[in-house]
């Protein structure tokens, strides 16, 4: 919606919406993170925070967890064709919902699904879209959304506005904001708005044939509390075994730098960084990772960062809570042994 064509329309667009991305009925953490952040923005705007949950009829049972994480209201969008995410039926359904209920702000996780959906929707509803935000705030005077994001591989930050269009749409990087369990008096009323979209045959052209699991992913990277990542400094693809052993000893997941993924040492599902995943575990151990900015932007939110690298000038040490200058091939196995010893 272009407000320049009808400035009086602005007042009709109200509330902050969060897309409650779900796969197989599991609402993704990024949805809860965005509801928590949305509540902060809503304080300034004095508006509601609403979750948008789409799926088949079984998905209704997931509304409660959205309330428990702070949603004031849930828009429940159901159709059998919405069971698994596909671009066209989701775009159709959510565009119809936006047209009917007119949100002021629409936040979507910057996941592969969220970025696929938001980019298509923004053109259809004629609104601005800012990709992969890491910071959100409200301009106290103009009451519009300030969307901050890294660009140029993380070398610069930019703050973007969509002053004249509604909704103001943004995809937001997972793991930047923290989810919260909130006792929300409004949510006890269980305010669910049910919506049945009208899908068209042309929305159903793409068919999902199968899902291929990656056997090398033993622990899900984005939900792991401990991550051990390997970079070029481990010298040989075989040495990912050493990284895996440390991860296993700690009960954590295996991450990787872009250089190792590009070199084919490990699958892309492990990549951390600007073009990979953003993670924020309790403990991140970087083994032989120099720490190019494009990697750092993907893990700088970690609580504790340990860097192990031969080069004392490696940029990773600027970010590390604890730095060890040394050969990974010596230090990492020693650390694994020590941890096994403690844990018995």
């Amino acid at each position, binding site marked *: 919606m272009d407000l320049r064509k009808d400035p009086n329309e602005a007042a009709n667009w109200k509330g902050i919406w969060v897309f409650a991305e779900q796969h197989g009925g599991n609402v993704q953490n990024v949805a809860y993170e965005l509801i928590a952040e949305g509540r902060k923005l809503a304080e300034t705007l004095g508006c509601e925070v609403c979750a948008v949950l789409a799926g088949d009829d079984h998905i209704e049972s997931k509304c409660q967890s959205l309330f428990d994480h702070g949603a004031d209201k849930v828009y429940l969008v159901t159709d059998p064709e919405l069971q698994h995410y596909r671009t066209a039926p989701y*775009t159709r359904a959510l565009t119809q919902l936006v047209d009917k209920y007119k949100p002021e702000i629409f936040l979507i996780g910057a996941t592969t699904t969220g970025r696929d959906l938001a980019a298509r929707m923004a053109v259809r509803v004629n609104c601005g879209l800012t990709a992969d935000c890491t910071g959100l705030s409200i301009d106290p005077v103009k009451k519009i959304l300030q969307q901050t994001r890294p660009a140029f591989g993380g070398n610069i930050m930019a703050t973007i506005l969509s002053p004249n269009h509604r909704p103001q749409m943004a995809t937001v990087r997972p793991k930047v904001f923290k989810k919260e369990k909130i006792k929300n008096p409004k949510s006890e009323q269980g305010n669910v708005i049910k919506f049945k979209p009208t899908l068209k045959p042309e929305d159903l052209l793409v068919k999902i044939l199968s899902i291929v699991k990656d056997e090398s992913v033993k622990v899900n990277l984005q939900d792991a509390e401990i991550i051990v990542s390997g970079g070029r400094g481990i010298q040989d693809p075989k040495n990912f075994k050493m990284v895996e052993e440390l991860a296993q000893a700690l009960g954590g997941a295996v991450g990787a730098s872009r250089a190792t*993924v590009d070199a084919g040492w490990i699958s892309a599902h492990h990549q951390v960084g600007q073009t990979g995943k953003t993670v924020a575990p309790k403990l991140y151990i970087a083994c032989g990772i120099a720490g190019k900015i494009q990697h750092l932007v993907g893990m700088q939110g970690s609580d504790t960062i340990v860097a192990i690298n031969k080069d004392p000038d490696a940029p990773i*040490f600027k970010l590390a809570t604890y730095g060890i200058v040394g050969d990974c091939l010596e230090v990492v196995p020693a650390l694994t042994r020590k941890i096994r010893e403690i844990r018995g």
Partner: protein
Amino acid sequence: MDIAVCIKQVPDTTEVRINPETNTLIREGVPSIVNPFDENAVEEALRLREKHGGKVTVITMGPPQATEALKQTIAMGADEVYLISDRAFAGSDTWATSYTLAAALKKLGKFDLILCGKQAIDGDTAQVGPGIAEWLNIPQVTFAVKVEVEGSKAKVERLLEEVNEIVEIPLPAMITVVKQINEPRPPSLKGMMRAKKAEIKTLSAADIEADQTITGLKGSPTRVMKIFAPPQKGGGEMLSGSADEMVNALVTKLRERKIF
């Protein structure tokens, strides 16, 4: 089959810095390259042409110097290239860019397949490919790691966070590709000769019959309010001693932090 590839000329982002005093980009001395993911898209188009016949057309929207990027794709083997360039396009965000590229594609004819890189390494938005698909009203598949065309359909494997998803999509379609899909070929000698001699055709806003109220900065819903350097971190504690001593010290500190 007729394949179009949309590419972008980008600064080599590893070299881009910000002037902390003026908060402006320092672009001097920063080389321009073809967006790496777009090179994968060109490579995939060439492979599909080799298998199924047809023609590969490459387009880019940008200033006159973007012809260099187009020439690079001729050197790789592209059949036809077009520069979409007009002052009316200056300052486009992803919304206006996708409109403009879609208008150019419509003007250039019917394509069975349109390929893009998953995102450009300067903006990192991944929004232009799906935007074009919406303007053209064709289905899209993003983050493709494998594309097989069979008749009027394509089977595409998508690289998602934890799994890969295999989908079937009817043509014409938009597919955006990830780096793992292929290894872009180096330019051939013959290709380089062709590129050197090639006259690059430029299409203006009028040529592609673009509605100029929705191109460029004026047609862009988003505005850049400010740019700034990311905050610098100070650095933490360096451990010292032998490997075993450092490991012991580290474990003690991690246990103090109640990590394990």
